[in-house]
């Protein structure tokens, strides 16, 4: 729901205002700077997927973000001390990774070979941008031309995934 420049602005704003809050909390709980950084980055990803790209409405964004970070800290802390982890997993990052060993290789291949299509498709399927915003961001004349391009890219990437899956299957399995 946000364009590239405003996404960077928004994330920078959140970083400047909220990282000190989370870092202070993690430090007080005995965590390190790197713990705080890891937790904050995960919390930002969850926040982005649920609130910014998702349709989850929260009344106080900053309190919500802090809540996610605290939850992630508790989870990490509990794992470290081998206590029973808390049941509520609603703030966890949904597991997008699939089990197939070639997925990482295909992803890496597409990050270089198919960047333009991947950027366009992830604007639709990850950032959940509206059609007109995607058209504007990628310089298409209108919604119709960007729609056609979306399906062309889907076909192209799908074919790459198919070919690469076959290729890697020879080595891996």
């Amino acid at each position, binding site marked *: 729901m946000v364009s590239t420049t405003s*996404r*960077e602005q928004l*994330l*920078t704003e959140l*970083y*400047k205002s909220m*990282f*000190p809050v989370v*870092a*202070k909390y993690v*430090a*007080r709980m005995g965590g*390190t*700077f790197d713990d*705080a*950084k890891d937790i904050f*980055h995960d919390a*930002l*990803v969850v926040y*982005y*997927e649920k609130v910014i790209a998702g349709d989850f409405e929260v009344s106080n964004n900053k309190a919500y973000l802090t809540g996610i970070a605290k939850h992630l800290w508790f989870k990490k802390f509990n794992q470290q001390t081998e206590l029973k982890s808390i049941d509520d997993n609603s703030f966890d990052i949904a597991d*997008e*990774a*699939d089990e*197939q060993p070639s*997925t990482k290789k*295909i*992803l890496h291949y*597409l*990050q270089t070979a198919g960047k333009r299509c*991947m*950027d366009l*498709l*992830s604007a639709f*399927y*990850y*950032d959940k941008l509206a059609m007109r915003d995607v058209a504007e961001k990628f310089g298409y004349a209108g919604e119709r031309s960007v*729609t*056609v391009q979306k*399906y*062309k890219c*889907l*076909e192209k*990437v*799908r074919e790459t*995934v*198919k070919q690469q*899956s076959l290729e890697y299957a020879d080595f891996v399995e």
Partner: protein
Amino acid sequence: MRTSLNNTKITDDYVNGVLPTSDALLMEARLILNPDLGTEVNLHKRTLNIVRQYGRESLRAQIEDIHKQLFIQPQHQSFKDLVLSFFKR
């Protein structure tokens, strides 16, 4: 749109659960009759999964860049000092 693009759109709408009920039922019937279509649907799901992973990794890279900027650039020195002060024992 050309036929293959229309088919891709139908598969995509089906996978994302936005195909109208009657079309979705038709798709279910075709899936039973045509195993190749099942393979195509699975490939489509896997492709979307990879696209979302790509989106998430791009976001993570952007967050990492912002972190570096805030901890390297001199204009953010007070921010850096504040955060680091919490970890001094």
